[in-house]
């Protein structure tokens, strides 16, 4: 056997990091995806951002011809917006709180109490996803119309509540199921009472999943427009519903841009939390994955 110390090939390096050829090909795709997604996803968002701070934008120009905040004052002074913003926030908070009160104890029961028919009943909540959403709203609207709930706050709260059921039950249920029971037993063993165990051992373990469920519910309700449109009009107008008319009537572009940014604010908050729980399977557990 001859010992030939010649290296077979040289590994390429990028920015001082050794990269295998396989990695190189993969990351080439990564860069392509990065550029494409930036154009497709960040592009439209940036456009809205620019419009919100454009005093004037004469076409054709790549950037606003004059910058300023005056449309913010103007938008925030509009009656429809000053009434829609508290309506949206209040509605989202109410629906989230109601949903939590109704669903979280149920999630605990689904995870912990072994009653006959448990699996089937838990699965029945999948029905929310198994119907085409808008068709469902129409049939609900027909019922609400007869009950006189169209155009009223309770009507909008109820239809938005429907949307939250699956998230609020499935994510916490799987979180409660994934708890290591031995930890609770160990606490009971050293003499902690049931309530103390629940609050000091059980709850901290499911907290991230509960927080995720609450945040998702709040944001999706805050953004919910279809149900609110078909049930709420004309009595109840949320910010999201307002956007329909701002887009369709094309009044002033900046109004829409400013509302968009305001609507988007809660998402920014969520986005900062998102990285943590999106990596795991928390969110997908809300869809039965």
């Amino acid at each position, binding site marked *: *056997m*001859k*010992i*030939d*110390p*010649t*290296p*077979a*090939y040289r*590994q390429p*390096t990028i*920015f*001082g*990091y*050794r990269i*295998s*050829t*396989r990695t190189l090909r993969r990351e080439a795709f990564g860069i392509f995806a990065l550029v494409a997604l930036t154009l497709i996803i960040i592009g439209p968002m940036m456009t809205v951002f620019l419009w919100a701070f454009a005093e004037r934008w004469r076409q054709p120009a790549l950037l606003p011809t004059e910058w300023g905040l005056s449309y913010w004052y103007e938008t925030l002074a509009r009656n429809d917006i000053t009434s829609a913003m508290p309506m949206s926030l209040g509605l989202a908070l109410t629906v989230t709180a109601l949903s939590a009160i109704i669903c979280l104890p149920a999630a605990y029961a689904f995870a912990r109490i072994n009653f006959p028919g448990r699996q089937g009943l838990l699965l029945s909540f999948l029905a929310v996803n198994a119907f085409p959403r808008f068709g469902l709203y129409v049939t609900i609207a027909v019922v609400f119309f007869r009950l006189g709930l169209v155009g009223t706050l309770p009507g909008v709260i109820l239809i938005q509540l429907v949307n939250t059921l699956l998230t609020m039950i499935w994510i916490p249920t799987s979180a409660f199921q994934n708890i290591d029971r031995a930890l609770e037993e160990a606490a009971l063993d050293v003499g902690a009472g049931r309530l103390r165990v629940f609050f000091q051992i059980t709850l901290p373990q499911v907290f991230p999943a509960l927080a995720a469920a609450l945040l998702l519910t709040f944001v999706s309700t805050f953004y919910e427009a279809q149900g609110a449109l078909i049930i709420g009009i004309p009595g109840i107008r949320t910010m999201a519903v307002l956007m329909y008319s701002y887009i369709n009537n094309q009044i002033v572009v900046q109004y829409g841009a400013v509302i968009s940014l305001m609507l988007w604010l809660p998402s920014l908050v969520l986005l900062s939390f998102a990285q943590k729980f999106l990596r795991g399977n928390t969110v997908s557990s809300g869809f039965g994955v």
Partner: protein
Amino acid sequence: MPTLDLINLRKQFGSVTNPVVAVNDLNINVADGEFLCILGPSGCGKSTALRMVAGFEEPSGGDVQIDQQSIVNMPPNKRPTAMVFQKYTLWPHMKVYDNIAFGLKLRHLPKNQIDQEVQASLELVGLGKYGDRYPAQLSGGEQQRVAIARALVLKPKILLLDEPFSNLDALLRVRLREELRQIQRNLKITAVFVTHDQEEALSLADRIAVMSKGELQQLDKPATIYARPKTLFVADFIGAMNMLDGEVSGGVVKVGNQRLPAPAECVAAPAKIAIRPEDVTVTQTGEGAWHGRITQVSDLGHYRKVFVQSPDLGMLKLYLPKSVEVNDGEMITFKPTRFLIFQGPLPPFEVKL
């Protein structure tokens, strides 16, 4: 005649300026039909080396040759190697038959030949009737047997095994190890087996490559590795060893209060003295003997394991024949019959008394 050569094989991760060297200039040659174990503690680079042979890691330098042909630029699916993984890695959606037949189907063999070879390889690992089951219906040991059959059915030039038995319980591990050895002998296949279990390596291998921190420490027959470890690491890692501090001067080495003979080639300098627990005899009194108090005696069947607290050597472990009467708390006088003197990175000197 499949042979495998790792030539100056090197793998580093991280940046060029701050590299983490996983495998450092590794040279190993495996002869045709040989069973070679790569042995080392976790993180020593043994698995990385094996994965470079299989093609799952690209070397940063050096070469891997099978029959003197470089394979580093071949993707894993083109290499004439077959691997058995630590986790059983059977494809859960395929029956045992399909798991084994998968590679054969890729090679477009006729159906009846596939049937025959799958059945033959299942018989080989003692699972002749299991073809119709799904992996989830098998025990861990059975799954790993299927994994071995799946690798062997392709008649690879080199069989690679990455700690294949470490997920199994102790008894099963020993049984599968013996079965594997038998199969390898019968097929005369060249095999490389990675493990952190020295007992496994000592009982399986024709030769053992001991690795530490990415470097090859010693490549020898099991008996040689045990009797003549080349480095302090190997001496300490393989088997039980008493490590004592000594000082060489003028043909003697002073260990504790005793002087033992040293070869003339030894340098006058501090040294490490390595004594196997079985390389001691109990004496009455005499030149070159130490004394100490017995702190613990365990009966291990055909011999006794005795811990001795010696005033100038510290705690020592001795294996004594049952003919010698020892009891907890008694004083004992003993001297070495054989020891190794380590000085710096040089191979040790062996002294027999």
